[in-house]
């Protein structure tokens, strides 16, 4: 269901996409092939800073829903770190862009202090 809505959205976005001026920044990451315009993520055609969480969540629902999807598969009660969930942590609802990047490689902000197996796209 989630995915089909997205596919629809995706097609719509492609249809409405107009050939705009050449931009210095290219769209990489998971959205690279989706024909997004700057404003799809930035809510403006002349972005100054990274997108807000609200902008990402317009298509990706909510932190709670994301946390559901990335819940750890198995939890070892003796290992506090096995509870780790990138979308629900002691850092609070941080910026998506602290991990997920579009114009440069993604990076796990937790990696400064932990060694987790999950990697952000």
């Amino acid at each position, binding site marked *: 269901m989630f995915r089909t809505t997205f596919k629809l959205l995706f097609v719509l976005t492609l249809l409405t996409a107009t050939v705009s001026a050449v931009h210095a920044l290219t769209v990489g990451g998971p959205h690279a092939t989706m024909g997004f315009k700057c404003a799809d993520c930035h809510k403006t055609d002349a972005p100054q800073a990274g997108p807000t969480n609200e902008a990402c969540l317009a298509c990706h629902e909510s932190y709670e829903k994301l946390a559901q999807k990335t819940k750890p598969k198995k939890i070892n009660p003796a290992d506090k770190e096995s509870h780790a969930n990138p979308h629900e942590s002691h850092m609070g609802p941080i910026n998506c862009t602290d991990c997920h990047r579009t114009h440069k490689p993604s990076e796990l902000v937790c990696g400064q202090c932990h*060694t987790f197996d999950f990697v952000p796209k």
Partner: protein
Amino acid sequence: MKKLLSSMASAALLVACALPAYAEKTMEADIAVVGGGLSGLAAATQASQLGAKVIVLEKQAKVGGTGLFCEGVFAAESKVQKRIGINVTKDFAFKLIMDYGHWKNNGALAKHFVDRSAETIEWMDAMGIKIEYVGVGGHGGPLTWHVIAPGPDYLSGKNKHDYHCERVINVFNKYVTDHGGQVLLQTPGTDLIREGNKVVGVWAKDKSGEKIRINAKAVVMATGGFSSNKEMMKKYYPEYPDITAVGNIGKDGDGIRMGTAAGADLEGMNTVEGYRPGLPGFHPADQMIALAVQPYFWVTPRGERYTDESNIVFWPYSNNSLVRVGGVAYSIYDDATRKAAVEQGIEMPLGEWVLAGTKLVKWEDSFNKELARKRGFVFKADTIEELAKQLKMKPEVLQASVDQMNKAAESRTDELFGKPAKFLRKVATGPFYATKLTPRHLGTLGGMKVTRDNQVVDTKGEPISGLYAVGTDSGGMYGDSYDLLLGGGTAGYAINSGRFAAEHAIKYIKQ
């Protein structure tokens, strides 16, 4: 006069209209607190209690800062200490703090802190913050570390973090918002607003980049120091600027920068909260690290012992000895030591993280995973010679150190460093394991120079009207090293200093 004012007002209006349409918001408060960590929320709570309208600015997506990680706070002559029969007097505590700092510290501030510490425990108790037990800073030391008990949300299962200092954060945060205060998340303070010599507010920036002008009668700086600021670390901790900061990110020295721009003097900037050595990327309770920091046999990259390993009881000492040899060491143990730690449990506790006697059943998993990552953090070999080669040490140097250690273990005397006999262990049964150790700290301790009431002073010692610095944004509590003789000193000081600033600011506002 009236006319002049109104023409000034219209001139201001004109200027305002002429400026480009920068969205700009203005807010009003009695007291603006920059930083919603332990000291900032304590200040905000105390100020709210005294009837002030408070705005708290917090850079991160969540309040708490380093205050999310601590467990207990210092007090002397508290009710609970008296009840158990713990005899730590205020006089004793004050003298110990000052002697440890060689009287380089701010005596008036330290005395104020010690004298009010017990009352602060009562103040928290009245808000529902209870004490679980009273412990030590370093094993065997005076009992001053008042460990915070689990709160109702922990007990009901609603919030597994409603415990230790995070319990304090939860209670303070709720108190402030319930009493008309505002806590703005992801909204860092950026610059102080001054009028003549007075501080009259602070600029902030919300997460969409919009500037907010906060007019306030007093501003409390509580941004938690500068451990995330690489430049400042280079300048003030040149011995090992890359020291791993355990805790939270975004402590960029903003408070100190803003204060300095307003004329603040600084003190104690070279002192960090040196911690048990370890490795970046590992939880403080990781079992591979827990075994590596057992006080047995640690060598420099040349392969020589460099310290009484058991000084890790007072981890600032452990940090100091590691930093002085360049900041890299290897903890080496044999299979007999590994087996004892896994099957019988460890001798040296890691605070509340890993208790004495804990069987390190997760050691194997953690060690082997790290070995497979091949990051140069852990090593394993069947012989000392082979291990030395992996560690790029001269095998004969490491072998000589091992021989000397084994001799010390047999004779029960450590000729090199006089380590207590119970920690003298052989390195004899292969395979042998090595874990790299590098310096870590819990935060910076230097900052703005303050009065006993946490008013910031300038280089002439004159208080800057309307400006306060608390917690780790203020200096003066320490000499050249972090003091762990009395447990709970930094968190205790954070809370107490927050209260002092709020109390003084209220008096200042009413003047």
